[in-house]
């Protein structure tokens, strides 16, 4: 069992980085789309749907970044009570919270995939001026939630195998991006 820990840690690390990278690229795309809408308006050209595309980018960057933010211990919570515990009780408390979070993320991911699938089956289109097939922007949105659920599940397995809380508490979150 112990041999599984190392690949597990590598997988978590890579997935978090991948999610962060995707979210960052989408954020850049969002900025470019908004810039494009300013420029096109200044030139008097109407490009339909730019604001809708920017909104889709925000949604996808939001869910894709969830796993990365988890890896950086960036999600906020009330730690006042938890911080009173040390040792084993603290370990089991943190593991149960992580389990609950993983279950919720899985639930959320399942229904987002289902929503996307339904949009695809019925070929739903957006109400906005873009009139795009709505499953297209919903796919990365749902994908972000799936990756988040996956990372939480892997982190839960890691915590159970390692029997400690490495990677879960505010310790070293600095990371080099080169």
């Amino acid at each position, binding site marked *: 069992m112990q041999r599984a820990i190392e690949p597990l840690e590598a997988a978590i690390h890579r997935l978090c980085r991948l999610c962060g990278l995707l979210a960052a690229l989408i954020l850049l795309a969002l*900025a470019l789309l908004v810039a494009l809408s300013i420029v096109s308006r200044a030139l008097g050209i109407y490009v339909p749907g730019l604001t809708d595309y*920017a909104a889709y980018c925000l949604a996808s960057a939001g869910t894709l970044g969830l796993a990365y933010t988890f890896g950086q211990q960036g999600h906020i919570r009330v730690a*006042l009570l938890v911080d009173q515990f040390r040792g084993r009780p603290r370990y089991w408390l943190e593991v149960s919270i992580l389990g609950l979070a993983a279950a919720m993320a899985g639930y*959320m991911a399942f229904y987002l995939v289902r929503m996307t699938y339904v949009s695809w089956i019925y070929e739903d289109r957006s109400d906005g001026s873009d009139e795009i097939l709505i499953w297209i922007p919903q796919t990365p949105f749902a994908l972000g939630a799936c990756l988040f659920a996956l990372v939480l599940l892997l982190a839960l397995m890691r915590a159970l195998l390692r029997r400690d809380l490495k990677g879960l508490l505010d310790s070293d979150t600095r990371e080099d*991006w080169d």
Partner: protein
Amino acid sequence: MAEASLAIVMVVALLGLLALGLWIGFALMGVGFIAMTLFTTRPVGDALATTLWSHSALWGLASLPLFIWMGEILFRSRLSTGLFEGLAPLTRRLPGGLIHVNIVGCTTFAAISGSSAATLATIGKITVPELKKRGYPDKMAYGTLAGASTLGLLIPPSIIMIVYGVTAQVSITRLFMAGILPGLMLAALFVGYIVLWGLLSETGRSLREAPASWGERLRGLVKLTPVALLVALVIGSIYGGLASPTEAAVLGVAGALLLSAIEGSLTWKQFQDGLMGAVKTTSMIMLLVMGSAFLTLAMGFTGLPRALAEWIGGMNLSPWMLIAALTLFYILLGLFLDGISSIVLTLAVVEPLVRGAGIDMIWFGIFVVMVAEMAMITPPVGFNLFLVQSMTGRDLGFIARAALPMFLLMLLGVVILTAVPELALWLPEVLTRN
């Protein structure tokens, strides 16, 4: 009273999930889940999915990551040094001396940054060592920094106003217009407090700085030009009706990148760090926004907010008493939560109540942001206190006591805002007339 017992179940569930240390966004989602299962036969999961989608893919919310990114870029630039060197000759002759740079610096930076954390980190990284070096007492230096940096929330652009605007469905542009005068009023209160300290206290009187020559002042003004240009670009374009907040945010990002490129601090590493910082904060807030959207939907099914609004309405409270009760309520929440969390947590229930009482939702937005500012500096959980703590190494109790006068001044600010609602409502009225 089945309704009352169910309400208790939900409050207990919420407090339980929060106290366990579950992420706040998930705690909100969990309570929404419980409420929907108890009150409706509608498929919960599908409602969750469509709500998350429709409340994430919003054009108004798209300004959020951009303003966060802009703050991240400017934090990594040399802007804070320029701000300090520019403001020091202009303010140091006032009683209280260079402490004023904390206030004026935070107020200025708040006008190009959307968060109090970015404001605190940027101004603090220069004023903390400089004030220490010149022998200013820690108590004044850290307290005013923790207090004034909360202006990042009230002075536009503001992340918390964007979140409030999309949650309460009011215009973000109008909120941005409404925030500036109350923000300047608070800044003036802080400055007044420091002047009094400089005149009346023993230490304050002993710390009089030499006046700056006109040449120094002029050179100071030159150093402030980049900041002034950024403020004009972002706030000016919104107030002038030229750009929506999202468009102004992208102008701000471009301006911030250009500024760091000109001063030579824009490396590939800096760019990456800034962008990844923005990703992190954006997703953190998006989880809160998603949780809050689902909780609001679920609360609508329960009918509880309406019942509560009717109950409060039946008590015939005067607006003053209602505001006083809400202030107390938010201060209590603020002891344990940060501002954005307490807003997204409560708005589902508080919004119908406030609308029912005939209170203007723009005014209420400014009110709630001001109370959220106070939450930033109240222990045991006050994010600005944590930031100052990690920056200076002093213990939380000391910083909290140092920031207490700022807290009381903000309370005074809330009273003034309630007595003179035009403080918030006049400017949006004037700017959007025509």
